[in-house]
C-alpha cells in the first residue's frame, strides 16, 4: 500500500526544490511539474482499486482522528486526485512549449502548488485543514491569473483576489462558529454531532461556508470574477482553473452539505441555483466575441448543470453529475488548450479571426471540434452520456419541479449548441475565398500530445460510457452513505 499522504508531499517537495534546480539549469525546470504529476497519477491509479475495497485512513503524526488531522482516501477523494493528476499532467506537457516568456521558474512553482492545494482539499478530513489547502489553491490562482502582467491580467487578478479573500473570511467565520458549537474540527466528528444542536444555529455557519466556497465554485451570484480571470490568464492556467479549480470549490460545498450537514432540505435551493447559474452562463456565452470569454461563460453554465445533477440527491443523479464533471474537465481543458494555440498563431482572441483555421491547423481544429461537440452533448462523445444520465436521473425523480427545470436545461443546451456551432462554422466554413495563401501548419508535439490524449479520452468514454459510470458509482454512494463515512473515521 502506498501512503496517500505522498500525493500531497511529492508535488509540494518538488515545488519547494524548484529554485535549487534553477541554480543548476533553467532548462530542466519545466519537466519537474511533469514528473511530479506523473508520479501522482501512478500513485492515484494504484490506490484507486484499493480504496474501492476499503477506505484508507491516514492520521498525521500518529494521533487518532478527532485529535490529529486525518486524511480520508475514499473513492470520491481518490477519484478527484486521479482527475487532478491526469489533467494537471497533460496540461503540464502543454506548458513545456507554451510558457516561454516571463518568469518561467515562478510559473512552474505556482502551478505545482495550485495542484497540491487541490489535492489536499479533496483528501483531508479536517475542516480547518481543508481551509488551509483551499487558500493555497486560491492564492496561487490569483497570482497565476496575473502571469502576463498586462492590464487585463492585473485587473482581473485584483477582482478575483478581493472576492476570493472575502470568501475565505466567510469560511473562517463559519469554521469559528462550528468550533464554538461542537468543540472539534474533524468533519466526521462534527457530522456525528450535528443533530445535537438546534437547527438555526447550525444552519447559519452552513450559510457562511457555502457563501465562502461558492466564490471559488462560481455559483450565481458569486461568479462575477470568473469570466475576467479565466479569459486573461495564460491558456494553460485557464484550462486548469476551468477544468479543476471550480470543481474543487464545488467539491467542498458538496462535502459539507452532504457529509457534514446532511442538509437534504437545501437540495431544492441548490437545484434552483444550479439552473439559474446554467441559464445565465449560457446566455452570456452566446453574445461573446472573445473566444476565451465565451469558454469561461460556458464553464459557468456547465458548473450550474453539474450542481443541478448532484443535488438531485439520488445515486443516479450524483453519478451523472460526476460523469459530467469529468467530461467538463476533459472537454474544457481541451478547448482552452486548442484555443490557446490558435490564439498564439493568430495573435488575436476574436472569434472572427479564426477563419480558415480548419485548413491552416487541421489537427488542432479537429481537436477543438471534438471538445465543442462533447460539451454540447453530441452522441459519439463524452458529453452525451453525461447529459443523458442527468436527464434520466431527473426524470425518474417524479418531481414536477425537477421535470420543469430539466426542460429549462434542455433549452439552455440548445443555446450552448448554437454558440459552439457558430465557432466551429467560423473555423471550417468561413474565409475559404481568402486570397492570402493559408499554408498548412503542424502544431508542435507539446500541443498535439496532450490535445490528442484528451480527445482520445473523450471519444473512448463516449463510446464506452459504462466503464466510467461504473467507476463513479462508488463515489456517489460515499456521498449518500454519510453514516459509513462517520463510522469509518470515528469508530
Amino acid at each position, binding site marked *: 500500500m502506498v501512503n496517500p499522504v505522498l500525493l500531497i508531499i511529492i508535488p509540494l517537495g518538488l515545488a519547494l526544490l524548484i529554485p535549487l534546480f534553477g541554480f543548476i539549469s533553467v532548462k530542466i525546470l519545466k519537466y519537474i511539474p511533469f514528473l511530479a504529476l506523473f508520479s501522482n497519477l501512478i500513485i492515484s491509479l494504484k490506490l484507486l482499486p484499493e480504496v474501492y475495497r476499503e477506505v484508507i485512513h491516514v492520521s498525521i503524526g500518529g494521533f487518532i482522528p478527532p485529535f490529529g488531522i486525518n486524511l480520508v482516501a475514499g473513492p470520491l477523494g481518490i477519484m478527484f486526485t486521479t482527475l487532478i493528476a491526469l489533467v494537471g499532467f497533460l496540461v503540464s506537457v502543454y506548458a513545456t512549449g507554451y510558457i516561454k516568456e516571463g518568469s518561467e521558474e515562478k510559473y512552474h512553482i505556482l502551478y505545482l502548488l495550485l495542484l497540491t492545494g487541490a489535492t489536499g482539499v479533496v483528501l483531508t478530513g479536517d475542516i*480547518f485543514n481543508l481551509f488551509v489547502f483551499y*487558500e493555497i489553491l486560491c*492564492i496561487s490562482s490569483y497570482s497565476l491569473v*496575473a502571469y502576463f502582467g498586462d492590464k*487585463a491580467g492585473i485587473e482581473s487578478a485584483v477582482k478575483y*483576489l*478581493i472576492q476570493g479573500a*472575502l470568501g475565505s*473570511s466567510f469560511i473562517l467565520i463559519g469554521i469559528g462558529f462550528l468550533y464554538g458549537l461542537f468543540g472539534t*474540527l474533524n468533519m466526521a466528528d462534527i457530522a456525528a454531532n450535528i443533530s445535537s444542536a438546534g437547527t438555526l444555529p447550525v444552519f447559519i455557519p452552513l450559510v457562511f461556508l457555502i457563501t465562502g466556497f461558492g466564490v471559488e465554485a462560481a455559483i450565481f451570484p458569486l461568479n462575477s470574477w470568473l469570466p475576467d480571470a479565466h479569459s486573461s490568464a495564460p491558456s494553460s492556467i485557464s484550462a486548469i482553473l476551468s477544468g479543476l479549480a471550480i470543481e474543487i470549490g464545488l467539491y467542498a460545498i458538496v462535502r459539507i452539505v452532504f457529509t457534514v450537514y446532511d442538509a437534504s432540505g437545501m437540495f431544492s435551493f441548490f437545484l434552483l441555483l444550479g439552473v439559474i447559474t446554467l441559464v445565465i452562463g449560457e446566455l452570456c456565452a452566446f453574445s461573446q466575441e472573445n473566444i476565451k470569454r465565451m469558454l469561461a461563460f460556458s464553464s459557468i453554465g456547465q458548473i450550474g448543470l453539474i450542481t443541478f445533477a448532484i443535488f438531485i440527491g439520488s445515486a443516479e443523479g450524483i453519478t451523472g453529475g460526476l460523469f459530467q464533471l469529468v467530461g467538463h474537465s476533459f472537454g474544457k481543458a481541451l478547448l482552452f488548450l486548442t484555443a490557446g494555440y490558435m490564439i498564439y498563431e493568430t495573435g488575436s482572441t476574436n472569434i472572427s479571426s479564426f477563419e480558415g483555421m480548419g485548413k491552416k491547423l487541421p489537427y488542432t481544429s479537429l481537436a477543438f471540434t471534438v471538445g465543442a461537440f462533447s460539451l454540447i452533448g453530441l452522441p459519439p462523445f463524452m458529453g452525451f452520456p453525461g447529459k443523458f444520465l442527468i436527464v434520466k436521473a431527473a426524470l425518474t425523480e417524479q418531481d414536477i419541479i425537477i421535470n420543469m427545470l430539466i426542460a429549462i436545461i434542455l433549452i439552455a443546451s440548445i443555446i450552448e449548441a448554437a454558440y459552439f456551432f457558430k465557432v466551429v462554422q467560423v473555423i471550417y466554413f468561413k474565409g475559404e475565398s481568402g486570397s492570402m495563401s493559408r499554408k498548412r501548419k503542424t502544431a508542435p508535439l507539446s500541443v498535439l500530445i496532450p490535445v490528442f490524449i484528451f480527445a482520445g479520452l473523450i471519444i473512448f468514454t463516449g463510446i464506452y460510457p459504462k466503464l466510467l459510470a461504473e467507476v463513479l458509482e462508488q463515489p456517489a454512494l460515499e456521498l449518500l452513505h454519510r453514516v459509513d463515512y462517520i463510522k469509518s473515521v470515528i469508530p
Partner: protein
Amino acid sequence: MNIINDYIYYFGAFSLIFIGLYIVLVKKNLIKVIIGLSILDTGINLFLITVGYKKGGTAPIFSEPGLQASEMVDPVPQAMVLTAIVIGVAVLALALSLSVRLYKHYGTLNLRKIKELKW
C-alpha cells in the same frame, strides 16, 4: 454590567468584522479596500480566540509548577489563529503588490474608474 462584560469581546470582534466588510463593500480606493480586509482579518482572529476563552483560565503553557490543565484556555483556536494571521499577511502582501502594478498601468486606484473588462 455582567452582560456587557460577557459580550464585550464578541462585540469588539464583530464590530471589526462589520467595519471591515463595510469598507470592502463600499469604498472605491483599492488600498482602502485592502485596509478593510486587514481589519476584517483582525476581527475574525479576535472572534476565534474569544471562542476558546475559559473564564478564570490561564495561558496553555506549563511554565511553572502547580498549573492545572483543566483551567487552561483552549489551545486549538490559538493554533488556528496563528495559521490565519500568516495566511492573512500573505493575501495582503499579494494584494498590495497587485495594487502597485495596477497603479502603474492605470495611474489611479479608483476601482470605479478601472473598468476595462466588462461583464
